[in-house]
């Protein structure tokens, strides 16, 4: 490696160190003392985020022969993923504490986070494939961690779909290598404009399919609702947050670098994916009565908004700050919404929230903040993100996409309100269709006493506050990410 700066990868190394150290520590720790591992993992994540924040002040660079890009996008993903994993470890602790495989879960969460960062940072197609695997394999294990029938089914679906899309992605990479004779993004950017259009089309489609799968975008979103509803709420939060961040950043880099000048209209393709994702996600969420499935489809639609900025990655300099703020806002708000489900694991349907919740008023208030945050109500972080994304998309000559997104935002309000109204007022917003036959998701006895787990409730409150603070402090966050502070 010679003169390569190994320390440029300090944030990733810290995560890896945390994973290995956690595994070793877990081996020699009694089962009821596994909180030590949790602590070690948290420290590793915080240290990694700190190192990433420091690295942001330095100019962008490419290390290890141009395969690993360290710039604003990578920095944002490093910080958000590291902090996200740290929070999610504590969110999961409520259901994992004392579990025989507790350490393994934390370690897998760290490794998945590492894979997500690798997706965002890769500047080479082969590294992208490796990152795809690293961001997938630990997640299969996490999805089925509870070993119950729903979890196993979810894992099978996730795994089969992941394997299938992985093959597509390899075909895409092979086609691009065939077309350009290289795998590095910068060389690809130079070679691809003259490449054969057929090979190029296969390549672009295959590679985009891979990242779209990890992001949970239409048309490879089918795993999202089943996996989300089949696994435990903390794992659902993890699966719909961490890999998406890396995948969206990877797609952003692909559009900004190798696909920037290709003769195909890749931005239009991504714009259509974005429009279809947000529309289908919203339409499918309309009739969900299971809160986890509702949130699952809401994440599909959120990916649609994120892909708007991916589409204009190469066209406007408003894109990078938009991505930075939306990714962070999405992570905070989405984790908060899932934390609400984790805090009251027995309230799985909207009606349960109507009849049983509402007494702990602060839970209801924080949930309302998080859900309105997902809609994009000011002054939360997602509002600033949406504003930035809309401005970027319009500036990138996709006005129609902005109009579609605005209409979808109104549509999304409808199903979030279906949940907000019962949580706030204790009565359904509109008459809920009679549940029973054909309904989805496990059902609980409405009106039974609900226990609220303290750790997820804390995460929920923190996410609600964080969402507002990030919105109000958007200028500070953007200043940090652009290296100005």
């Amino acid at each position, binding site marked *: 490696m010679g003169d390569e700066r190994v320390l440029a990868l300090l944030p990733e190394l810290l995560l890896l160190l945390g994973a290995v150290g956690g595994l070793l520590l877990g081996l020699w720790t009694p089962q009821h003392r596994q909180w030590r591992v949790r602590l070690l993992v948290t420290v590793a994540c915080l240290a990694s985020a700190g190192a990433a924040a420091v690295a942001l002040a330095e100019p962008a660079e490419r290390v290890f022969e141009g395969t690993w890009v360290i710039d604003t996008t990578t920095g944002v993903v490093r910080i958000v993923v590291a902090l996200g994993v740290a929070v999610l470890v504590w969110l999961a602790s409520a259901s994992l504490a004392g579990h025989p495989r507790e350490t393994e879960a934390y370690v897998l969460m760290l490794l998945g986070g590492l894979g997500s960062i690798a997706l965002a940072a890769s500047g080479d197609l082969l590294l992208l494939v490796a990152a795809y695997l690293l961001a997938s394999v630990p997640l299969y294990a996490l999805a089925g961690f509870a070993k119950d029938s729903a979890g196993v089914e979810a894992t099978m679906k996730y795994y089969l779909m992941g394997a299938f899309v992985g093959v597509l992605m390899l075909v895409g990479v092979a086609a691009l290598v065939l077309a350009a004779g290289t795998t590095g993004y910068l060389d690809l950017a130079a070679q691809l404009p003259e490449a054969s259009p057929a090979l190029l089309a296969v390549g672009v489609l295959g590679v985009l399919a891979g990242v779209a799968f990890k992001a949970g975008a239409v048309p490879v979103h089918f795993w999202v609702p089943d996996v989300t509803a089949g696994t435990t709420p903390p794992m659902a939060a993890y699966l719909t947050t961490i890999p998406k961040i890396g995948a969206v950043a990877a797609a952003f880099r692909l559009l900004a670098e190798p696909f920037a000048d290709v003769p195909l209209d890749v931005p239009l393709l991504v714009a259509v994916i974005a429009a279809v994702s947000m529309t289908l996600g919203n339409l499918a969420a309309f009739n969900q009565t299971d809160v986890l499935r509702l949130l699952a489809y809401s994440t599909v639609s959120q990916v649609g908004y994120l892909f708007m900025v991916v589409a204009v990655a190469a066209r406007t300099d408003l894109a990078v700050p938009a991505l930075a703020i939306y990714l962070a806002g999405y992570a905070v708000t989405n984790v908060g919404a899932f934390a609400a489900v984790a805090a009251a694991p027995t309230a799985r349907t909207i009606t349960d929230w109507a009849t049983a919740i509402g007494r702990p008023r602060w839970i209801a208030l924080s949930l309302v903040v998080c859900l309105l945050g997902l809609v994009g109500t*000011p002054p939360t972080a997602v509002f600033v993100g949406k*504003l930035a994304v809309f*401005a970027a998309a319009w500036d990138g000559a996709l006005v129609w996409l*902005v109009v579609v997104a605005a209409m979808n935002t*109104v549509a999304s309000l409808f199903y979030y309100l279906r949940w907000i109204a019962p949580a*706030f007022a204790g009565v359904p917003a509109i008459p809920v269709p009679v549940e029973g036959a054909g309904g989805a998701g496990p059902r609980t006895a409405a009106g039974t006493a609900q226990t609220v787990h303290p750790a997820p409730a804390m995460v929920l409150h923190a996410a609600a506050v964080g969402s507002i603070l990030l919105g109000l402090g958007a200028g500070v966050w*953007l200043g940090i990410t652009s290296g100005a502070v």
Partner: protein
Amino acid sequence: MLLTVVIFLPLLAAAVLLAVPGIPGRAAIGVWIAASAVDLALVGWMWWRFEPGEGASGVVDGLAYEADVQWIPTVDAGYHVGVDGLSLPLLALTGVLFLACAIYSLREPDRPHTYAALFLFLQTACLGTFASLDLILFFVFFDLSIVGMYFVIAGWGHGNARRSALKFFLYTFIGSLALLVGFIGLFLGSEERTFDMVALAANPPLADSPVAGGLVLLAIGLGLAVKTPLFPFHTWLPDAHTDAPAAGSAVLAGILLKLGTYGFVRIAMPILPDAWQRWAMVAVVVGVISVLWGAFVALAQTDVKRMIAYTSVNHMGYVLLGLGAAGLVASADEEARTVATVGAMYQMVSHGLLTGALFLLSGVLWSRGHSYAFDRWGGLARPAPVFAACLAVAAFGSLGLPGFSGFIAEFQVFTGALQAAPVGTVIAVVGILITAGLFLLALQRLLTGDTVVPSETEPDETCGGPVPGRTDGGAATATLPRKASRMADLRGHEMASIIPLLALVLILGLFPRLLLDVLEPAAMAAVELVSR
């Protein structure tokens, strides 16, 4: 700094109310009244110290109490607030009306902490919208006012409250997103890429691209028209009003509707002068249709509160007529256009006070008999003389009788608009006649004849599930045996909230200079900016 305190003082009080659940219910309302009173006193102090300036002053210069802090530097959006002759009267109106609602709610029994906190939150949102000098900040407060109002209607409304609240939220949210899209258009169209209203008004964007300018104006106009509301986007209004609690209706009609019309004066006219001139006739036509539509539909109502709600559509129509006439640069001189703008602004304040009083009075009806139907009330002048007097004053004020503020406003609108849009103005005058008729009819039905009061023992309509149609409900109840019983007159706190509003209406009607001195320089500035 003072302005920031004025905006966020209610929010602070709301946080205190939520954080300390141990405060007794009455004391919670007491905190609300105290916070609103202090806020109003501060606004009064600002008014006292405010220098309206000579000649045209406002919108782009002569701003007082300014504060400007960077928020999102990449898109140049910031916390920029300030006061000029356009916003100061509306800030004062907000202070007055919220204080009146606080006093009126003194006996609000149901969850007083959250109720008071929500209203205080709403007050911050409304004050913030009127004080904003940045498009994004304007949008933030504008949207928060919708969220706050949703919870007020959904949580404390009656009848089919949740459906109405949902309708209100969805409609106005569509409007606010159209507004956001328009704002982004202004941002991208501006030379220096900013959301700052003052900078945008000084150097209007999209001046040389009429198509883009027109589309952006369409988006902004759509957003504001839903909020105002103008025909044909007014259909959320009667439901939301009828099912909201009295104080909620008063705030919704008195303040929230003004957010829309204020947006036209503050944003659409100075920032898109070229497009506003081009499309001013559309504003005039929509205004005139709203005047007539609101008046005729109000005439047909069998429900007091729905009738008042539709008169709001009618009154907001006059505002749009005035503002549209201000944009018809070619066919009217500057003096006439200024008079029209001043009239429109005056109408906003006047309507806020009058409709606030009317909705609080209709809330009195609900608290006595749980019904708004005309045919279940009658002859109230005998048992409740103070109520009758207040209702009569408010009704005469609303129909534009000289001596009340509504007359000053409508007279100026018509005077100013006659030169620019003679046909529209003449048609709109017909609206006055219909409004006069419907208010007299309402007074007649409610106050004269034999005393009829819904009996307390009758089943409460709110418990009967969704009422299939309001008119049907009214007809069905008409067949029930009518029982004359006592109607309690206005109580102390009700008088203390309603009578000051009516007194202000009278003062503004007799001494219009109080308000005109502040309004005129700013309106002149707005008209000059439009005619660029």
